[in-house]
């Protein structure tokens, strides 16, 4: 079934699916259907990670001060190449949240109080809170404006909303300084038209800040062509590096806008003059050397990025082959699962939402916005029955389903409420195949039926 999608002709390459599972570290009874939240690493990368950690303890000072920076450069180089970005524009940070924080906390807001941060209502939770904090802590210098779009949106619609937001912001005397948006939003897991919005930002003179938390390794990225002002992407999700590894890309023209790391540390070049830096002297740019050491942590995950790129190339057959498979599996596997549940996947008419490795399957659980109906009601529609309940109860149901999945089914699937309905997000990966999605469909159907029997209420009472 998968063979037509995994680049036939490379006899040495594995067929994706269960054959690839042997490279990974899952418990034999655990099925990993949610790669998108925290990712995971193959055994080879685990070995590399351990190897770097052993180098650390073998000669701690020498490794951290002299050898680590060189290895870090190699790793930056490998990732920069994959992203088609100049190496001097790419540094490592532990995760995308830190990347976004680093940019937003460095921007200097104008004294006139007119600066505005634009973002979409699809923003990731922690990044939304970062905007809140920036607004809260800058004594009125900067405000935030949310652009509301409804799933499933069309790309053109998003562009139109953006233009309208910029115009209306300006019409009330505001200055849209920066716009934060995703490559792929988290829940629902759908592609955001980030290329279009980056073009629009450029056109309107708004700084583009791209949250590519779901990015490298999942979809093809060309940062030079994209030409965003700031871009961050997690390597630990889809590139198979150990957790705590992300890229922050800042083109040379914008590096002066990011003078400090988070936390501010040794590399900071103060306007008032340089201070003692305990690390060996360097000829690297302030941007690169600043992010080389931000306080003692284990930087081994950063070093593994180079190894992960290579492993994916040599063992999995490269980025194109991987992405062709995962995109196909997400869409077709998602459809299969939805068919079993008796529902549909989330997509738009132009099918741009599903050009990624995530897919969202509607659950037959409807959410009524009014609080009048205080408890759930079951209705039969066609071949499957569907439940309707108020928002508060639906949240409890989502929580219950997640816990039951771990306990009874040895897997995990995130649930969320969108467009008046409960949805399940599945992640495609090279170690999964159509059978896993069929299994997921059956499990989701089973869960929906258990919800219909109000099992979550029994649990609540216990």
């Amino acid at each position, binding site marked *: 079934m998968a063979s037509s999608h995994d680049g036939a002709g490379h006899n040495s390459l594995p067929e994706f699916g269960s054959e690839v599972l042997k490279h990974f*570290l899952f*418990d034999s009874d*655990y099925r990993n259907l*949610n790669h998108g*939240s*925290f990712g995971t*690493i193959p055994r*080879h990368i*685990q*070995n*590399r990670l*351990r190897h770097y*950690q*052993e*180098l*650390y*303890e*073998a*000669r*701690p*000072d*020498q490794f951290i001060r002299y*050898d680590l920076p060189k290895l870090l450069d*190699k790793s930056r180089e490998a990732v920069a190449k994959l992203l088609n970005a100049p190496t001097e524009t790419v540094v490592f940070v532990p*995760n995308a*949240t*830190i990347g*976004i924080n680093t940019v937003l906390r460095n921007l200097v807001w104008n004294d006139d109080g007119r600066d505005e941060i634009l973002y979409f209502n699809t923003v990731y939770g*922690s990044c*939304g*809170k970062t905007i*809140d*904090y920036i*607004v*809260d*802590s800058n004594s009125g210098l900067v405000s935030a404006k*949310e652009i509301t779009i409804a799933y499933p949106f069309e790309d053109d619609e998003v562009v139109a909303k953006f233009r309208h937001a910029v115009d209306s912001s300006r019409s009330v005397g505001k200055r849209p300084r920066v716009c934060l948006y995703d490559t792929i939003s988290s829940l629902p897991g759908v592609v955001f038209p980030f290329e279009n919005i980056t073009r629009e930002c450029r056109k309107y003179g708004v700084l583009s800040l791209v949250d590519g938390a779901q990015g490298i390794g999942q979809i093809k990225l060309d940062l030079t062509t994209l030409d965003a002002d700031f871009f961050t992407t*997690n390597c630990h*999700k889809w590139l198979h590096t150990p*957790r705590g590894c992300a890229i922050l890309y800042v083109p040379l023209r914008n590096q002066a806008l990011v003078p*400090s790391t*988070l*936390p*501010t540390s*040794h590399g*900071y070049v103060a*306007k008032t003059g340089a*201070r*003692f830096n*305990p690390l*060996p002297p360097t000829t690297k740019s302030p941007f690169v050397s600043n992010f080389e050491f931000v*306080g*003692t*942590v*284990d930087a081994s*995950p950063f070093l593994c990025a*180079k190894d992960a790129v290579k492993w994916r190339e*040599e063992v999995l057959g490269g980025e194109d082959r991987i992405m062709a498979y995962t995109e196909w599996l997400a869409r077709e596997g998602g459809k299969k699962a939805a068919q079993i549940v008796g529902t549909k996947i989330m997509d738009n008419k132009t099918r741009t939402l599903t050009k990624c490795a995530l897919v969202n399957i509607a659950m037959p659980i409807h959410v009524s916005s009014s609080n009048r109906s205080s408890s759930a009601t079951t209705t039969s529609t066609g071949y499957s029955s569907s439940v309707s309940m108020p928002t508060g109860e639906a949240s409890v149901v989502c929580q219950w389903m997640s816990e039951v999945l*771990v306990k009874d089914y040895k897997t*995990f699937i995130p649930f969320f409420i969108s467009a008046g309905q409960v949805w399940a997000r599945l992640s495609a990966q090279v170690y999964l195949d159509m059978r896993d999605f069929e299994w997921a469909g059956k499990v989701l159907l089973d869960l929906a039926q258990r919800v219909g029997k109000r099992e979550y209420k029994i649990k609540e009472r216990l």
Partner: protein
Amino acid sequence: MPQPPQVPFGAPMRHAHFAFSPSYLPLNHGSYGTHPVSVRAAHLALRAEVEAAPDPFIALHFASRLAKSRAAVAGLLRCSSDELVFVPNATTGIDTVLKNLDWKPGDVVLCYELVYGSVANGLSWLEEARGVEPHVIFREWPIADDDIVKMMVDTTRQINAQPGKRVRLAICDTIISGPGARVPFERLVPALQAEGAMVLVDGAHGIGHVDIDLGVMKPDFFVTNLHKWFFVPRGCAAFYVPKKNQALIRTSLPTSHGFKPKRPLFLSTPEENAFEELFDFTGTSDTTNYLCVEAALRFRHDVCGGEASIQQYCRWITERGATIAAEILGTHIMNIPGSRMRECNFANIRMPLELRTEHEVNNRETAEQDGKVDPRHANAVSDWIKHVGCTESGTYFQNFLYRGNWWWRISGMIYVEEADFRKGAHVLKQLCARNHVPCLGRRSYDETSDEYNDLPSGPSDIRCQDLTIPDLSADYTQAHWGLDETAVTFVEDISLGACRIKTRKCPEEKPTQTPGSLDEAHQSETLEVERFAKAEIHSAHGHGAGGNDEEPMWNALTEGSEWSTF
């Protein structure tokens, strides 16, 4: 009465429980620490557990397991566990305070000139971005304890006496990093609080190093690294904020899921600012090391005989090491009457190096032969000693130039013994002597030896035995380190950091500089030190493992390989 350790402290402890390369001499625990192999085993097990079922571990069980680590550390530091969270390092903890306080016009942050570098940068950022004035007391250390307290209190009063100004925050250390010196923090905290300041204690060198009782000290903010002196894997610090101050710390760094905005973007019920939750999850990272506290405690208790036993040995070996080093270097140990600065695992030994005075620099004739260092090369000399110490002798000399004098900061730790400091001091003495030679000025190391700029920086071979595919790093080694005749290459066994020597090409003698750069006396001293060091190693075998199973491994590691450059 401290309990005796299971394995004697010193070389036996090193061989039985630590993963250092056999050719490495660790005399600088203080910068980055290290952890014993039993803690590493616990850490590997945790990491394996995450990959076996990632979502349940991270999303469902992590916070409650972290709570156990927090409770254990809170117990040791004597605070309530809802006042203590984990952050990656002290720098992050301190910057979290600096970036959270609601700074008001006229607010001043007070510190002394030995405030840690990254903290000083944090203050510069605060000045530039928030207009908060830092006030640094420039006064030469060491300073007697009474005078430290007086100087901080008097300065606070002077600043507070100025209209519109107040010292909002004062920063002091438990132990200063460079020079390594204990600070009378127990006295500073109440004295400065009495003047109306909040006090932030930088305990980067704190837990596992000096006794800390937060219940008595009552600082406003405190952070301490667990990866330095407590044996938790790197990237782990405890950050303490008493309940009365938690409302001031509104967000973690980075701002993340735990933030409770004043005007939320999303519909949610306003809640109390739950300090603990704020720091439970600040973005995906590997924080399994936060769960290694228990393994570290077990090692400290079961293997080392407890905190008192560790502290007693570390103090003793620091004192012995410093005395031996000062004797060999012909110098003295930094101290001042009326100070407890030496009540810690650091000692600072003056290095036999002199800076040229301005007059001497201008007098070209004497400047060629005085054996002193040109001020323009001062920092380069420190860097050169660090670099060459690593590449030639497998020792990192944490040395610094402070107000015109060079100091070597040594760290006492349970895995070092007197002989280690003897070896280290001999190597450092040689290095200092080589720096006396005028032709080893900055330009010389470039031209004659390539040592400073172009020599590969280390012998760590990046090859891994069990690779199934060819590794880039082999090319890397070839291209970057292949020319290094003196390098020890080692291949590691993937199991718990055990290292063994693979090949070793020993230099016939030190690469000579331009003729005359090393005079005969220096050369013969080199050889003598090498012989001496070998004898030391053999004696280490003798008393070292003492019937322990580790001994054969140690012998196997060294047998037939002329690896020591000491």
